[in-house]
């Protein structure tokens, strides 16, 4: 149904343009196959990306199982009841804090590492060895978060984990890497970096490969050393890539993936491990507070878009291209 009306709409649209009916028919006769190809993807976007937006309104409404979304009664306080409720909820503030703190730590510690790694790989002069290093560094990216978390568990458990066994052998005290909130944050960030640094370096390696080789040769003739070449050629060459990725990361500062924190959580560290996505899961899908958690999700999306717009604008102020 939706598909048919969509196609009809498309036709109408074309006919509205300032050219004659015959031309439109001729155009369609020529290009209909392209619209046919686009039909399924567009239906997909409509159903799975845009129809859910209709349900956003339950953030402002009293959810009821039996009623149609459009007919549900508005929530109190001009519909903002659930936002107010969320902002009065201590757990929500903790989840918000944890989301931002974990993302910021990821950004501050994790963002530069792929850049260093890419530059270092670029300086590595053994091509065979370089390839092996790359392959191995990409490997953790292909492990699921469940597996990464279970590897972390095997390495860091207090009594039998490899790391703690080694610490104890060297005369130290075993460290509760995954069972004490502060240590957990540290471990979570480090393991996350372990999983992604190699993969994230690909894009920088690509940018470095795009730098004109003559620049390096000219610098060499001028007697530039390795550091000078990195500082004056490589880094400026990948600057726009760095900025784009930084904008994307800043836009995501309040967003949170679900797979990673959920796989790492355990009961002893929830005060620092509960982020917005897992909060929404436990309170929404498990706890059935649909209106409240939709409100939180909306808050998260809107703030994310705002952050993205701001950081893009700032980047453009500084003369960078930005992401659009």
């Amino acid at each position: 149904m939706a598909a048919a009306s969509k196609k009809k709409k498309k036709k109408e649209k074309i006919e509205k343009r300032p050219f004659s009916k015959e031309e439109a028919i001729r155009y369609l006769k020529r290009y209909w196959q392209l619209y046919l190809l686009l039909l399924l993807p567009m239906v997909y976007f409509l159903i799975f990306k845009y129809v859910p937006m209709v349900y956003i309104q339950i953030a402002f409404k009293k959810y009821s199982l039996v009623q149609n979304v459009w007919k549900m009664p508005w929530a109190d306080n001009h519909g903002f009841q659930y936002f107010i409720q969320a902002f009065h909820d201590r757990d929500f503030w903790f989840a918000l804090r944890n989301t931002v703190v974990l993302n910021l730590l990821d950004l501050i510690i994790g963002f530069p590492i792929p850049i260093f790694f890419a530059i270092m790989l670029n300086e590595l002069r053994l091509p065979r060895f370089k390839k092996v290093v790359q392959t191995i560094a990409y490997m953790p990216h292909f492990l699921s978060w469940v597996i990464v978390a279970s590897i972390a568990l095997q390495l860091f458990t207090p009594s039998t984990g490899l790391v703690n066994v080694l610490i104890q052998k060297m005369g130290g005290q075993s460290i509760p890497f995954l069972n004490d909130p502060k240590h957990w944050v540290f471990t979570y960030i480090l393991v996350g970096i372990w999983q992604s640094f190699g993969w994230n370096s690909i894009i920088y390696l690509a940018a470095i490969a795009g730098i004109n080789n003559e620049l390096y040769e000219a610098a060499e003739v001028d007697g530039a050393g390795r550091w000078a070449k990195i500082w004056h050629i490589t880094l400026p060459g990948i600057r726009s890539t760095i900025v784009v990725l930084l904008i994307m990361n800043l836009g995501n500062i309040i967003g949170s993936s679900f797979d990673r924190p959920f796989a790492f959580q355990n009961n002893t560290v929830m005060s620092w491990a509960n982020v917005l996505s897992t909060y929404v899961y436990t309170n929404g899908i498990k706890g059935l507070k649909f209106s409240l958690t939709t409100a939180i999700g909306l808050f998260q999306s809107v703030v994310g878009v705002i952050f993205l717009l701001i950081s893009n604008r700032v980047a453009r102020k500084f003369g960078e291209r930005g992401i659009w």
Partner: protein
Amino acid sequence: MADSKIKVKTINEKVRSRHRFKLSDYLIIFVCILITLVCVLPLINLLAKSLSGSDYLVKGEVYLIPKGFTTFAYKTVLSDKKYIWAFWWTVILTVVGTLLSLFMTACCAYPLIYPKLKGRGVFNIIITITMFFNAGTIPNYLLMKSIGFLDNPLSLIIPSCLSVFNMIIMRSFFYQIPDSLREAAEIDGAGFIRILTTIYLPLSKPVIATLALFYAVGRWNGYSDALMYIKESKYYPLQLLLYNVINNINNVEVSTQEGFSTPGLSNSLKAAIVMFTTIPILCVYPWLQKYFIHSVMVGAVKE
């Protein structure tokens, strides 16, 4: 004459200076070795644990080489119908999902490379908005509920069947194929679908391989959709099963068989399941490395 001689000499010198290793080169090699070790050792430790006897595990004596070598954990995993079923079920989901995803991605990317396509701007906006604004977990859940996708294996395939990011990679690759090829075919009277199947797709094998890998890895490793939408354990993909086993949810296995109550053995069992889940991907991705590096490059440079 003399001039050219001098030139030859300087080039030789340059080449030589390139091959002379300085301290910093050794330092870089050293750091790279360290990094590879950090990446690999955790997995080797896991492999060793999965092959070790329980006594050694409890005492925490297993590092990188299995002690008290036994394949008991693997035999247990491989003889358990639940894991075998979840494995094949995930293989089915991955294959079907990947094929559907590739089909959808090509259908979406290809028409958008035609500048003459009317409404191209509208389509691009429709697609781009979904990249930056997501309705959220609960609205998606309610959608699944309203179209009957809860407890339905389709919810593991269809909602994730098209990724805008991957579509952009494919589109960028299509852009690189010279226009003259398709224009020649158009003059010969070939329809657009035919041009896609006879010119674009055969020339796009690298990007298809890459996206197949991305989609397949995404499906193989994903568990959150199953966690949210699927209650019946027969539809659980491998990762969700693994999650439940590792976190002792439902206490699968641990108490059902003789000797399973010791934590050491269940640890080696967990290690074995992790290896069993991981090995398929680790066997595939190195072969596709040159393709995915190239494709990420194309996507990065063009967009």
